[in-house]
């Protein structure tokens, strides 16, 4: 029996690529891709676009056809308020779960989450762990944490698995960063001498993955190793670079791919205690200088996460992917390609330019 798949958030970086990957699967008959607006949706084989807002009740005529749901819709802005993040990341999930309960043929549902539901926890983070009281760096983390709590309450009603994704830095082939995120912006600030410091310790691991690894893993797991009630980390894990290694690598890429940059002699950002970073941010905000404010605003909602040293365990995901041929990306190569692409495009992506002077 062929699958009919519903994907929410299908215009996002992951959702769009996932729709394309699943469409290539002969076992997939049709994909319904939910999007708030249908103006910029790509044409993909087997994909039918449906206008819909996950924060509102989803009443789809096609519900009876659906065998698989991938819930990728999310408000991923680190700077958003908790109420706004909850509205999409918890409220939206609740609507999709309600829809799922009305899909008689539903066999699998994947909820895409983030490894940073671990919030301010430190140390080794296992896939089967969720509960903690360490707090969160931003509302995005907290709302995704709460969304996983919601998943638990529905686990006996809907066959659902949670895939926690790491930070996606770009594509392996060509290094396309996709939609520019906070990490790309931070690299841009380094390039333009606007990144004086980063909170953390030099040895803290920075977990990153490629878009290919994220999409390939989810597609494989859905098709071949779906296990309801499971939670898997799709992350860099042991391949991760330390903060110091990553900073050195980025600087090295600036030197290699833009030799003229060397003569600027721009310093590597200092790795500082969190309170020092916060004092700098507060000082910049008090001074009110527009460019510096934009820079600190772009990174202050995610950078503190680097202070909370943690190592994400993905052993269950690795076991599930064992026969897939899918491997974690080689981090140095991936990051180098992405930085090179960022330099070549001057930090532009999808027509959007980085906030720089």
């Amino acid at each position, binding site marked *: 029996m062929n699958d009919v798949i519903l994907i929410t958030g299908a215009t996002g970086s992951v959702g769009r690529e996932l729709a394309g990957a699943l469409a290539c699967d002969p076992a997939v008959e049709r994909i319904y891709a939910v999007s708030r607006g249908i103006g910029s949706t790509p044409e993909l084989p087997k994909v039918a676009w449906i206008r819909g807002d996950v924060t509102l009740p989803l009443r789809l005529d096609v519900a009876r056809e659906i065998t698989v749901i991938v819930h990728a819709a999310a408000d991923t802005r680190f700077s958003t308020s908790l109420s706004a993040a909850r509205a999409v990341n918890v409220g939206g999930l609740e609507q999709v779960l309600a829809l799922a309960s009305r899909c008689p043929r539903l066999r699998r549902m994947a909820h895409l989450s983030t490894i940073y539901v671990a919030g301010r926890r430190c140390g080794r983070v296992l896939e089967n762990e969720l509960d903690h009281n360490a707090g969160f760096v931003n509302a995005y983390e907290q709302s995704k944490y709460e969304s996983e709590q919601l998943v638990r309450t529905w686990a006996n009603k809907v066959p659902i698995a949670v895939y926690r994704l790491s930070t996606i830095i770009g594509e392996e082939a060509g290094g396309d960063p996709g939609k520019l995120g906070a990490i790309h912006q931070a690299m841009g*600030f380094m390039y*333009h*001498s*606007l*990144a*004086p*410091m980063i909170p953390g310790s030099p040895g803290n691991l920075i977990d990153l993955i490629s878009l290919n690894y994220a999409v390939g893993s989810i597609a494989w797991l859905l098709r071949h190793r779906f296990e309801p009630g499971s939670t898997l980390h799709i992350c860099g894990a042991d391949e991760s670079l330390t903060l110091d290694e990553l900073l050195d690598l980025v600087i090295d890429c600036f030197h290699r791919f833009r030799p003229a940059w060397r*003569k*600027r*002699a*721009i*310093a*590597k*950002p*200092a790795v*500082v*205690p969190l*309170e*020092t970073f916060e*004092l*700098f941010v507060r*000082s910049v905000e*008090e*001074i009110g*200088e527009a*460019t*510096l404010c934009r*820079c600190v605003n772009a990174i202050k909602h995610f950078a503190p996460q680097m202070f909370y040293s943690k190592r994400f365990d993905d052993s269950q995901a690795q076991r599930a992917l064992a026969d897939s041929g899918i491997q974690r990306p080689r981090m140095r190569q991936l990051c180098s390609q992405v930085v090179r692409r960022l330099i070549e495009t001057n930090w532009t992506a999808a027509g959007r330019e980085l906030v720089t*002077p």
Partner: protein
Amino acid sequence: MSIGITNIQYVLPEQAHTLEALEASGRLESPAGRLREFGFDRVHVSAEPAETLAIEAVGRLLRESAVDPESIDAIFYAGAIPASHCAGAAAENFLHGFNYPVSRVQFECGLVNAAAAGVSQLGCLGLMSAVRSAEGFLAASPAANRVICVSADVFPHAAPREVIYNAISDGAAALLIERGAARNRLLAYRQITKGYYWDCIARKNEIVAAYFPTAQHIVRETLTQAALTLEEIDWLLPHNVSRRSWEILLGLLGLPREKLFDRNIAAKGHVIAADNFINLADLTDLGLARPGQKLLMFNFGLGANWGCMILEH
């Protein structure tokens, strides 16, 4: 051969303006309250030109040191602002540009055997760099024993008194650098110049951002040069920029607040190139520095130049 700073004398104009008075006269970019939060209280404003303050500082230095003016082998005059290198008012005749204050100081103070030179284009790092030049001069001149380094800067009348969130005072400081010095021996000096930031207006934000990691870097390098660890530093003698920036820098360096001699930030303001040495003089006068203690000075000058010097008291 030990070369060190054996005497320091400084001159601050008596006239002082509160931040609020400066704000009322339109001479601050930031609100007075914010600069107060950053540790400032007042600035000293001179009605006399820079070279007058320099002459007074050198005169005091000679008297307090009880050295014969004719025994001075060289004088290095450091001025941060371009006007500090031209004695008298700017004139219609371009030859007035050759009226060098160092020559006038040499004459007025009777330093008849002193070779004279100016140290410029280093912003607030000028005096520290002059000390390094004096050390080099003494090392290269076996017959020479004494050098005077002096800095003097006076902002133009009614000019803004705030530069990159710092409240600026006029003033002068004169140092006696001697071979065989028993105190304030120079252990290490490092300067980093980054010409990318030469345009201090266009690159103001980048300078603010570059300031901190480069400061951390140069302090570490200078400690390595002196074969010291940060824990072995007894006092950090700052340039009197905002206390807030020092709190941030202390966080980067991992140095406890009590090692920072910061009481002059409020009382004296940022006396351009003279801060570190005014602070050393006051630290000594207060009896806070003990023989053998290691003193670290850090300074930054537009240009952009970072400097770090370590002394043994």
